């Protein structure tokens, strides 16, 4: 009797567990019907400027990659012990957002000076929860404009911020800021030498507003250091001159800028003809009066 009771209890327990698991499946089944959010996080540091995370949220729905807008995200500084919340943010209508990080001093790295930031999405009725971490070490780019023999160069040095030692054999993009995409200077790969330096000539005659060019020195998407960008103001550009005819009197200008010939001649004809017409109409009244 005792044995059967034990076995009965075991069977009952197993039965109960199965049913419970089925029930749980219901729970997670609801979760499975939701889509997965893909978080893309890039760390960007602007020298003498902000450091920020470039975050974009997307999903693969019906075999197409789409951006997912208006998602609430939490950002944490992950340390060896703990997660320190840095803030919350919501992605914009295009599913992108920039989260400005506080100064590195206020964050905690791990023992090898690596900072880890986590971006978490808690999930909502349409999407599962997701999170992405990005780790980076702090580095600096010191860039300046050099003019040698009336030729212009950008000289840049890449150093590790903690140890101040140069970082060699990394390739830097030297590029001029333009409207859509920047204009690249130098070689396809401008690699830093053993002193962490690159020297890149800047092409002649690149136009800029008032002759000013904004030249970026960028370490792009590095595994260790993330993206670092230094901006050099270089007044070496060709001055942009407004060539448009917008302010001139032309045939295609709006009516307030009619060419003078048309304005004068046209009005002369119009007033001339209508002046005579008015005189004639006055004559009609004169005839009546007589």
């Amino acid at each position, binding site marked *: 009797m005792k044995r059967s009771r034990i076995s009965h209890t075991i069977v009952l327990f197993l039965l109960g567990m199965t049913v419970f698991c089925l029930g749980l499946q219901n729970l997670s089944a609801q979760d499975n019907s939701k889509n997965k959010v893909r978080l893309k996080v890039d760390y960007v540091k602007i020298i003498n400027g902000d450091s920020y995370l470039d975050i974009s949220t997307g999903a693969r729905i019906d075999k197409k990659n789409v951006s997912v807008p208006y998602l609430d995200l939490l950002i944490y500084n992950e340390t060896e012990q703990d997660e320190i919340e840095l803030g919350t943010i919501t992605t914009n209508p295009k599913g992108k957002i920039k989260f400005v990080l506080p100064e590195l001093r206020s964050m905690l790295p791990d023992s090898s000076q690596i900072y880890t930031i986590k971006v978490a999405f808690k999930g909502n009725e349409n999407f599962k929860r997701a999170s992405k971490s990005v780790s980076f070490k702090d580095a600096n780019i010191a860039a300046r404009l050099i003019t040698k023999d009336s030729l212009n160069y950008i000289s840049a040095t890449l150093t590790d911020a903690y140890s101040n030692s140069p970082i060699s054999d990394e390739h830097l993009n030297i590029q001029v800021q333009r409207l859509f995409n920047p204009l690249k200077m130098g070689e396809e790969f401008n690699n830093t030498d053993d002193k962490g330096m690159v020297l890149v000539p800047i092409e002649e005659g690149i136009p800029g507003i008032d002759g000013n060019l904004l030249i970026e020195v960028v370490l792009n998407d590095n595994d260790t250091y993330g993206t670092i960008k230094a901006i050099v103001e270089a007044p070496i550009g060709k001055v942009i001159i407004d060539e448009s005819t917008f302010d001139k009197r032309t*045939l*295609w*200008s*709006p*009516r307030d800028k*009619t*060419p003078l010939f*048309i*304005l004068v001649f*046209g009005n002369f*004809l*119009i007033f001339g*003809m*209508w002046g*005579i*017409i008015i*005189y*004639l*109409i006055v*004559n*009609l009244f*004169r*005839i*009546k*009066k*007589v």
Partner: protein
Amino acid sequence: MNTYKALVKDLAPKKFHKKDQLWMLFLSVIIIAGLVAYIDQILQGQKVTNMNDYALWGIYISNFVFFIATSFVGSVAVAILRLTHNNWRTPLVRIAEIITVVSIVMAGITIMIDMARPDRLMNLFLHARLQSPITWDVVIIPTYIVISLLLLYFPLIPDFAILKNYFRKKKPKLSKWYGKLALNWTGSPAQKAIQSKSIKIIALMILPVGLLLQTIDAWLFSTTYRIGWDSTNFAPYFISGAMVAGIGGLICVIYVVRHYKKLEKYITDFHFDKMGKLLTLVCLIYLYFNINEYVIPLFTAKKGEATHLDTLFTGSYSVLFWVVTIIGLVLPIIVLLFKNGRKPKSMFFIALIVVIGSWWKRYVIVTPTLLHPFLPIQGVPESWRHYFPSFHEWIITISTLAMALLLITIMVRYLPVIPIQRTADELGLNKKEQEENIEL
């Protein structure tokens, strides 16, 4: 000739008979049909036409150009003949003035039919750009309307006074209206002085304004890059074409009015002979400009020009082009060179051919050019490579022509079609009778 009394009786407006009323009814029906079609165009948009992004102007524009051309008759028959001291013009000028006014008014109406957004008509005045040839048109058309009205009205004043007396007993209400329009005309020297000075000014003015009107009409086309339009020849070509269309129209209307009002005494074979010679002259001038326009480009045969001339000479518009040129222009010249060709009945048929030819000629000017643009016609339905007006376009266009005829008929009904006072003066009829203002 007869006495003054008889003159007035002959020339005074008469009541409509059954035939005239039927004619008015017929025209009114057409006009109403046109109105209905136009309202449908307003509601649905111009997709009721057969115009497309390539044939973007069609029969509405060629009809408009025809009306502008016909309105030149005032400048020719009144101003030019006056300046050249052709005194035989007297019995013809009133009708010429009537046709001028009606044509230019219909031109204004017709161009508004082509506007796809007539609800924004005021933009043409509020936001007008003087650089645009359309703005020049917007200026010159109202100007010409007013001038041609003045040209019609000033010589009418003494006639209104005469008619006021003529109808005083028989039709007092009508007499009152004539009286109002007569502006207290008594024939006094002071009034005559103002009137004749004014007429002199108008006659002088209407010629340059008329030339300007035809020129601006031509420039609507020749200020574009289109092959077949981009021609330095266009303005004089249009001016001479307007003379042809105008005089042709004048002869047609004069013949009909003379017949129905029994004015054979006043408008004689002599007048027709003279008009025939005038028509021959202007047709020859027009032929000259046609040769400049269509023959000379053959010498260089630039690709675009060659395509255009091919279309007209041997291509899809060749039948129309040759009919309009040979039958509409060359044939009249040949017939009119003979004295018998200038007899009234022959003149009427020739003039009719000339007018119909003029109307289709403008179709040939507007449409073929649009169907061979610089870039090949691709990426649009096959039907877009051709154009023939739709039912809506035909009804609306025919109704504008009907409206023109209706307006002419109404004016001919109420206005003396031959200037009474002037004719009396020229014939030196009994001055005493005139001064006593005999009631009849």
